[in-house]
């Protein structure tokens, strides 16, 4: 299957789903800041990789996939749960990229331009995650 952008899936996203993601994202950022303030940066830093949004995202993927199947008269539960498993597999590969992001920030933040380091770290996350995804896709 080719990589593609399915813009129609944005139309299936309801306003409350956007709100839930915004809420969880905002709360996770506030909570991470508070944990660092109470327990210090060593404990607080762990929570920069906390999967705060993952349960909400996985539930929405399951719901959307089930609704898509049910519109064609199928039950869709099995298919929906496979879709969640595939998303989780992608996140497993992404977590290796996330470690690369953290290493770049840890190693280069003190001596470099802040925005250049954050942008480079984000590119490192993307490049390593996609590379692992491609390796797995062509060498299953």
């Amino acid at each position, binding site marked *: 299957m080719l990589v593609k*952008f399915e813009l129609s899936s944005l139309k299936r996203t309801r306003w409350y789903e956007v709100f839930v*993601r915004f809420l969880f994202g905002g709360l996770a950022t506030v909570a991470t800041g508070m944990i660092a303030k109470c327990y210090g940066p060593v404990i607080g830093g762990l929570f920069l990789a906390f999967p705060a*949004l993952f349960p909400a995202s996985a539930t929405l993927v399951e719901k959307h996939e089930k609704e898509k199947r049910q519109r064609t008269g199928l039950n869709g539960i099995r298919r929906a749960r496979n879709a969640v498993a595939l*998303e989780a597999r992608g996140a497993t590969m992404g977590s290796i990229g996330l470690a690369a*992001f953290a290493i770049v*920030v840890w190693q280069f933040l003190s001596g470099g331009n802040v925005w250049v380091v954050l942008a480079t770290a984000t590119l490192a996350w993307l490049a390593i995650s996609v590379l692992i995804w491609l390796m797995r896709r062509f060498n299953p």
Partner: protein
Amino acid sequence: MLFRFLVGGFVVSVFSALADVLRPRSLAGLFGAAPSVALATLGLTIAGNGVVYASLEARSMIGGAVALFVYTYLATWMMFRYKPSALLVTAGLLAVWLSSAFAVWSLVLK
């Protein structure tokens, strides 16, 4: 705190929207481990506490990423093997993330 909430909500929403439109699913799943909260938090931390403090957070984040690997690997396995409800697995396994993160902290970071 409100500013932190708004920045975090915005960054997470942008990454989520990207994940929504990308196909295939496993590629979209990469965004389930996007550094969205980290980008929002580190940017604000650098402004408030400086780069040394933020570097310490980033060092610990490596431990959090290892815990995320364990969490998502188990979620994948359970979803493929037993096909339970997504919420049950992903919320239930948060305890595994916490245990793994604190195991890394006590073994390496402490």
